[in-house]
């Protein structure tokens, strides 16, 4: 098991280094002088020179990359061109809303998706199964921001049950915090629910066809017991894998959701940076988001041993 972990971490390090190289080279892939592009159309040559200086764009490329990656590994992601504040600090300030939103979304999505997937597989071919599959296609097709505005219109503007927009910090009370996160989590989670429900159904159907399920039935285990204890446990690996891969959907979706619901999180930081061409922010957040994705999928890989003890022994 230890060797597996060490191997995985080794290949993760390679992937992470490549990610860093790509995020770094984004700025040099654009045609023309990156400093001039960042400075905008009306910049003077002094402004362009100062940006080039601040980003170290005058140095040879390999040196720039080494400087950047050593700084990044110490948590120094450069400073915002617009405000002059360190990017790392800006990200940390805005971490709470983004983490709250993604965690609530994952919890709600898992509850809905696994239940729907298990019900669909247990009643394969019935109307429940067809309804779950039809809803999952709709879930894949509905854009986050459209769903978001429909939810705001119905539940906040017309019914006035929930706040229209904004974020309430957890320190101000858990109920208000939840009330502000319900609609964003539902919009963000829709595609994620669709993805997990589909894979849960497929994995359950595979497991339910196994011999040991027939054995369990024959020895008189209750149908619910078979579903939960025998089938769901053994369908765990594909489900957990997709939960990890699907985090990419959530991370991308956070940017849109925070913009729709006016949540002051890391996603909004990026959106605000687009119009200001604040490139260090875009670069820093892209690197952090990619790192989170890689780490979550490493955790998913390592959890295989917990779900299925045979994997650890191999």
């Amino acid at each position: 098991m230890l060797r597996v972990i060490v191997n995985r971490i080794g290949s993760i390090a390679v992937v992470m280094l490549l990610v860093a190289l790509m995020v770094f080279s984004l700025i040099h892939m654009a045609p023309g002088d990156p400093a001039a592009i960042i400075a905008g159309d009306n910049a003077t040559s002094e402004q362009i020179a100062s940006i080039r200086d601040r980003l170290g764009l005058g140095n040879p490329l390999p040196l720039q990359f080494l400087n950047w990656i050593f700084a990044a590994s110490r948590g120094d992601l450069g400073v915002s061109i617009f405000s002059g504040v360190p990017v790392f600090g800006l990200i940390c300030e805005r971490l709470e809303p983004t983490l709250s939103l993604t965690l609530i979304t994952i919890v709600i999505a898992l509850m809905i998706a696994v239940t729907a997937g298990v019900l669909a597989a247990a009643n394969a071919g019935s109307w429940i199964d067809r309804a779950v599959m039809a809803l999952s296609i709709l879930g894949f097709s509905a854009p986050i921001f459209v769903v978001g505005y429909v939810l705001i219109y119905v539940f906040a503007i017309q019914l006035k049950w929930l706040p229209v927009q904004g974020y309430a910090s957890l320190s101000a009370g858990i109920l208000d915090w939840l009330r502000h996160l319900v609609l964003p989590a539902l919009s963000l989670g829709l595609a994620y629910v669709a993805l997990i429900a589909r894979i849960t159904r497929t994995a359950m159907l595979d497991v339910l066809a196994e011999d040991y399920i027939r054995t369990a039935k024959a020895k008189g285990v209750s149908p619910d017991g078979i579903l939960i204890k025998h089938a769901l446990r053994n369908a765990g690996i594909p489900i957990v894998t997709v939960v990890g891969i699907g985090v990419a959907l959530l991370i991308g979706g956070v940017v849109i959701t925070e913009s729709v619901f006016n949540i002051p999180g890391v996603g909004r930081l990026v959106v605000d940076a687009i119009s200001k061409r604040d490139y260090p922010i875009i670069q820093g957040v892209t690197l952090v988001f990619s790192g989170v994705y890689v780490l979550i999928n490493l955790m998913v890989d390592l959890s295989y041993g917990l779900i299925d003890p045979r994997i650890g022994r191999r």
Partner: protein
Amino acid sequence: MSALDAGAATSVRRSSTGRFIKRNPMLVLGILLLAIILMSAIFAPWLVGDPSAMMPNRRLLPAGLGYPLGTDPLGRDVFARTIYGARVSLTVGICVATISVLIGLALGLIAGYLRRADAPLMRIMDALMSIPAIMLAIALVALTQASVVTVIAAIAIPEIPRVVRLVRAVVFSVREQPFVQAAIAGGAKTPRVIIRHIMPSTLAPLIVQASYICASAILIEAALSFLGAGTPPSVPTWGNMIASNRLYLAKAPWTIFGPGLELALTVLAINLIGDGLRDHLDPRLSRRM
């Protein structure tokens, strides 16, 4: 040929079409829906008025006669803009699907067949997959002048790894098959083995994958436009319409729901086609997914 024979032939053809519709209702529904959207986008100038004409005395008109979706805050016809909006979306969707499939196919064949290229290429693809598609697209678009071409490139790049993985998996499963081994033993050169004997097996899964990429590209384009990182605001797209009308949600909801609905229907149509094709091309898999 007698009249009787001709009649029998038509009825056979009709019943086989009927059977096709009955066996693939979702595929047919998706194709119909997409055909309507595609036609309305192509023939937009003959169907609706000028999408950019501003009528200052007709701002935020409610939906009604003459303006099925009302007018926006600048007094523009929302229905006309929605119909025109399909042009950018469909162009981006089709171009992204074509480009990423072609590049992904080439890289996937190389990775799958040339063992030495496999590991480095796949690590690069792993890294590319680790960067969330929207973030990569935002970063690329923010650095270049916004245009349809940069948007297409920015969306196509993050889609490539998915195609590479798929093609590589197919190559792995075909590589050791007797017909490929026979071709190699018969003295066929590597490019010929890859193109003539291996590539045809990738076609069916690639068509299905292309439709999913097209759907996802349309969603990402709309998101980029919505976030202000897409095509210039002068071109009507569903994303930038929703973004510019968002402040009027309570007063004029159809200026947002109209383009939103057509966006959702377009993506739904393409996803239905993808699912339908997958079921039709690979019935073994379809019973499970």
